[in-house]
C-alpha cells in the first residue's frame, strides 16, 4: 500500500504538468500575489490592535507606523478595515465560485451526456442568464433578502453565475461522448458508469479546476460590485470601504489612502486570478504547452 502511495507521489513529482508549472513565470507571479492577499486576510487581524469599527481617535491620518494604511474620515483604521474586508469578500467569493462550479459542472455534464430535450432546456436557461445581466437579478433579490450574511451572498452570486461553466463543460462532454475513445471504451466492455469515471471525468477534471479559478475571479468582481452598490454582505467588506470613501468625499478631501489600498487589493486579486487561469491553461492544454 505504501509503495503504491510512493509511486503515486513520484508520478506527481515527475509529471509534465507539475514540471511545466514550476517553470511558468506567470504562474509564480500571480500565485504569489493571490497567496499573499489570502495570507493577509488570515493573519492581518492579528497584526493590528484595531477592529474595522474601533475608533482610533485620529481622523484622516495619512499612512504611518501606527496606521499603515492611514485612518479614514471617521477615524477608523483603514488597514483593519481592509484585512477584515479581505476575509469577507474572499469568503463570499470562494463560496460563490464553489457553488457556481459544482452547478455548472453537474448541469453541463447532464446536458452534454443526455442531449435532446434536457440539453435544450438547460441551454435555454443558460441563454436567459446570458441575455439578462445576472447582476441585475442579484440586486433585485438582495434587496428583498432578510439576512445578507457571507453564506447567503455566496449562494446568491454562485447560483446566478454557473452558466459559463455549464456551457463550456457541456460542449466538452458532448464532443467527448461521441469521440472514438469513448465509443471504444464501451466496446471494451465498460459500462456507462465505468466510462464516466475512467474516461469522461478525468478529462474534465483539469478543466473544472480552471473553471473554478475563473469563477473565483468573476465572483469576487461581482461581489465587490454588489458591495460597492450597497447590496453586499452586511459584514465589513472591501467594496464597502470604497463605497464609503466615495460617498463621504474621500477624493475631494484628498484622503487617497482611504480608497487606494483596498482598491489596489481588489484589482490585484482579480487580475492575478485571471493571470493564474492563463498560466494554468498554458500548462494543462497540450496545444499551448511550450517545452
Amino acid at each position, binding site marked *: 500500500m505504501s509503495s503504491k502511495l510512493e509511486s503515486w507521489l513520484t508520478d506527481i513529482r515527475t509529471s509534465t504538468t507539475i514540471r511545466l508549472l514550476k517553470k511558468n513565470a506567470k504562474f509564480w507571479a500571480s500565485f504569489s500575489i493571490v497567496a499573499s492577499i489570502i495570507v493577509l486576510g488570515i493573519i492581518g487581524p492579528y497584526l493590528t490592535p484595531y477592529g474595522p469599527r474601533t475608533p482610533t481617535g485620529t481622523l484622516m491620518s495619512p499612512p504611518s507606523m501606527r496606521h499603515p494604511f492611514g485612518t479614514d474620515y471617521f477615524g477608523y483604521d483603514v488597514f483593519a478595515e481592509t484585512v477584515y474586508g479581505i476575509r469577507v469578500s474572499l469568503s463570499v467569493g470562494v463560496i460563490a465560485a464553489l457553488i457556481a462550479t459544482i452547478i455548472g459542472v453537474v448541469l453541463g455534464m447532464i446536458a452534454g451526456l443526455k442531449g435532446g430535450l434536457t440539453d435544450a432546456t438547460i441551454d435555454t436557461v443558460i441563454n436567459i442568464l446570458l441575455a439578462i445581466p445576472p447582476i441585475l437579478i442579484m440586486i433585485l433579490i438582495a434587496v428583498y433578502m432578510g439576512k445578507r450574511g457571507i453564506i447567503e451572498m455566496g449562494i446568491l452570486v454562485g447560483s446566478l453565475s454557473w452558466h459559463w461553466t455549464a456551457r463550456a463543460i457541456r460542449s466538452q462532454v458532448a464532443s467527448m461522448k461521441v469521440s472514438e*475513445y469513448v*465509443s*471504444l471504451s464501451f466496446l471494451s466492455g465498460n*459500462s456507462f458508469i465505468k466510462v464516466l469515471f475512467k474516461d469522461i471525468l478525468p478529462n474534465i477534471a483539469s478543466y473544472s479546476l480552471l473553471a473554478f479559478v475563473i469563477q473565483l475571479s468573476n465572483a469576487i468582481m461581482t461581489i465587490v460590485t454588489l458591495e460597492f452598490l450597497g447590496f453586499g454582505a452586511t459584514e465589513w467588506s472591501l467594496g464597502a470601504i470604497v463605497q464609503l470613501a466615495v460617498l463621504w468625499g474621500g477624493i475631494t478631501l484628498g484622503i487617497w489612502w482611504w480608497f487606494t489600498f483596498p482598491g489596489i487589493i481588489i484589482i490585484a486579486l482579480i487580475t492575478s486570478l485571471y493571470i493564474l487561469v492563463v498560466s494554468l491553461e498554458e500548462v494543462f492544454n497540450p496545444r499551448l504547452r511550450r517545452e
Partner: protein
Amino acid sequence: MRGKDTIVLRDLTKIFSLGLLGRKKIIAVDRVNLEIRSGEILNILGESGSGKSTIAKMILRLLRPTKGEILFNNTNIWSMTKWKEIKEYYRRVQGVFQDPYSSFNPRRRVLDILYDTLYNYFPEYREDKVSAKKYIAEALESVGLNISDIEGKYSHQLSGGQLQRASIARALLPKPSFIVADEPVSMVDASTRIDILNIFIDLKEEYGVSPIIIGHDYSLAYYASDRIVVLYKGQIVEEGPPEVLEDPAHPYTRLLKESVPLIDRKWSKKLEYRVGDIEVSRRGKGCIFADRCPFKKPICEQKEPPVINLGKSKVKCWLYASK
C-alpha cells in the same frame, strides 16, 4: 459458435435531422439490405458522404437507425436494453476506428486500456496476472507489436501505425466473430497500409475473425476482400466478389475504377467528381446516380431501378433490366 454468427441489415435507414427543429433532413443510409456471414472479409466501398461510416456506427450499436433493423443471430440489436446483453454483443462484434490517435484515452496508458478490456470480458484473468500478460502479449504479437514497445506509454508517445495495431489488438481480446474496421488504414502511413490489411487477412485465416472493412480506396478494397459492397449516397449500387472491380457493371463503379490514378496512364478528367448531401425533399423518384450517369435513359429519372442479379454480382441499375 464461431463461423455461424450472422449480421443482417434489413432496410437499414438513417436520416439525420439538421437545422432549426430538425427541419432539414439528410439521408445518410438508404434502405440497405445486407447479410454478413462470418468467415469472409466484407469490404464496404464508398466515397465521402456515402454513409459508410454511419453503417459502421450502426452495426456497432453506437447510432440508432431511423428505420430498419440490424439482426445479430436473428436478434435485433436495439431490442437489447440491459448492459449485460449489449456487452455480450460487443464480445462478438468489435470495432476499429479511422483515427488511431483519438482511439485511446490520452490520459490512460495504452496497455492499461488493453488490460481493462481483457478483465471486462474474462474476469478470471484478474487473479492470474501472468496469464493475463501472456494473453495480451500474444494478441499484440498477432498484429506485429511487442508488448515492451507499448509498456508504460501513453497514446501520444506512440506512432500512428503502432496505435492502429494496438487498436486492432484491443478489438481481438474478447475473441470476436466480427471486427468492424472503419477506414482502418486511411490515417496510417502508406507504407504501413498493406501491413495492416495483411493483419486483417491473417486474422480471418488464423483466428476465424471476420473483418468488415470500410474504405474509400478502390485498390485496397480489391486487395483485401472476399465480397465487396459499393455504396453510393447511402444505397448499395453493386455487390459481389472482388472480381466485380475488374469489370464493374454499375456506371458508378466504372467511374470509380476510372478515377484510380495509374502510373502508366495519362490522367484524363473525364467525369466531374461531385458529392453532395441529399435532402429527403429534394430526392427524385428515379435512380440515385441518374444526375451523374453517362448512360442515363429516360426511365432512370422516373423510376427507381430494381436490384438485378447478374449471377456473380448484384447491381442496382436500369441498364441491366431485361426488357
